[in-house]
């Protein structure tokens, strides 16, 4: 067998194969023999029909089977001869020809794993923020809990003061136009509200807004103008002046529960205030630990990617870019982007998706290589344990988790997804 393999750019290799006439004839003879044994031809006992009759009756099937076997055997032989080549996929054979001299030739394109040298991946330098759960943070969390259990009383004998809670109805406009008209779908939840509770402190809502409510009594109306901050989440209306027509429908004073063992018992039965503080601290420390793990993972993967660059297979990149773009559109729409806004940003979004896709694929090839170099192994028992755990968490039968498994991406996994594993 004559095998020619030419490596090409972007993880492709061109394979040209010539199977000599004798090998073709031998394969054909084997297949014909099998057909003679199995074929049922009217007028003949099974396996007793003459060769010429079988050849005529099943000419097309025999020919197809010969080609299929020759191609299959040739691929196996070619991969054996080029063991160092990591083939990820084989495209459909082309130029399949039965030559006049009886030989058989065809070409095929192979998608191969990228070739790269692993950078020095031990001892990657990463930075993580120094964090600790201080008493102050625990107290802030306790205060939030107290607010959830606060009592509210109507204020009827005075005007609004700092620290009160106001219940308001409002509509907002920019240059006389409804806010949603200027800011789009995303701005809709902010454009008008009824029975909206707002604490009268400087940090609530927009800068200057709550100052405008001080001194108002229930049923009083007022126009309050504010400038939307430069870091406002809806880009299109950042820095613009918005006018709010407000009606105060109620005023309330807040009484927080005393911070004592009785309160702690209300939150966690049988626990003292000190116990509750310890529980809050543990919970916060656990969350910080998880965040730090995620930062470390993203840090090492970003660093690893910076250290080496190589082409990834084009077909993989196309498919992964589409997946990333789909995920970004989904995220955007969940965050309130309209279809129009998605369309407007399509170009940029696709560029960003391609960058993410390449990084993601690179990461996976690098990690696979590192796992091989370090001889990391996953035992069968580990896999079974993982699947059982996944099933338990999802409260689904183990079989269902198995069935979902093929849909999970492996070579296209985004680095941040490792954090949850």
């Amino acid at each position, binding site marked *: 067998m004559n095998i020619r393999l030419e490596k090409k750019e972007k993880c492709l290799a061109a394979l040209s194969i010539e199977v000599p006439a004798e090998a073709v004839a031998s394969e054909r003879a084997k297949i014909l023999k099998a057909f003679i044994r199995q074929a049922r031809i009217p007028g003949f006992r099974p396996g007793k029909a003459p060769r010429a009759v079988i050849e005529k009756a099943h000419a097309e099937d025999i020919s197809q089977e010969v080609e299929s076997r020759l191609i299959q055997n040739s691929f196996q032989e070619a991969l054996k001869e080029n063991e160092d080549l990591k083939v990820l996929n084989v495209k459909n054979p082309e130029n399949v020809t039965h030559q006049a001299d009886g030989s058989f030739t065809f070409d095929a394109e192979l998608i191969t794993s990228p070739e790269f040298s692993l950078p020095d*991946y*031990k*001892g*990657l*330098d*990463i*930075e*993580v*923020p*120094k*964090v600790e759960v201080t008493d102050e943070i625990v107290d802030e969390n306790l205060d939030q809990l107290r607010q959830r259990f606060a009592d509210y009383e109507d204020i009827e004998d005075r005007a609004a003061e700092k620290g009160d809670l106001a219940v308001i109805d409002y509509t907002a406009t920019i240059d006389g136009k409804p806010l949603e008209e200027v800011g789009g779908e995303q701005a809709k939840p902010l454009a008008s509200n009824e029975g909206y509770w707002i604490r009268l402190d400087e940090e609530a809502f927009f800068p200057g807004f709550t100052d405008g409510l001080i001194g108002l009594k229930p049923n009083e109306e007022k126009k309050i103008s504010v400038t939307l901050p430069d870091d406002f989440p809806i880009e299109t209306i950042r820095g613009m002046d918005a006018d709010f027509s407000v009606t105060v429908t109620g005023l309330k004073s807040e009484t927080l529960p005393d911070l004592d063992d009785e309160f702690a018992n209300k939150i966690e039965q049988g626990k003292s205030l000190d116990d509750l503080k310890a529980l809050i601290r543990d919970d916060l420390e656990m969350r910080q630990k998880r965040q730090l*793990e995620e930062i*470390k*993972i993203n*840090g*090492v*993967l970003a660093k*690893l990617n910076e250290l080496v660059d190589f082409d990834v297979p084009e077909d993989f990149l196309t498919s992964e870019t589409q997946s990333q773009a789909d995920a970004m559109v989904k995220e955007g729409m969940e965050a309130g982007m309209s279809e129009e806004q998605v369309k407007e940003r399509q170009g940029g979004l696709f560029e960003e998706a391609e960058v993410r896709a390449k990084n993601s694929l690179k990461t*996976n090839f690098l*990690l*696979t290589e*590192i*796992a091989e170099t*370090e001889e*990391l*192994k*996953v035992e069968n028992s*580990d*896999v079974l344990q*993982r*699947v059982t755990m996944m099933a338990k968490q999802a409260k689904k039968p183990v*079989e269902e988790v*198995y*069935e979902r*498994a*093929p849909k*999970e*991406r*492996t*070579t296209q*996994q985004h680095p941040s997804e*490792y954090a949850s*594993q």
Partner: protein
Amino acid sequence: MKELQKNGQLSNIRQNMLLSKAVDFLVSNANVDEVEPPTEES
């Protein structure tokens, strides 16, 4: 289960776990520097 294994449905889970192990390896071998978190002004 054997049928599922034959169908290669376990290979994705196995591959994910292997890549996770490689990530753990990188993290456990990294030089981690603790820095003060950026303040709001910076």
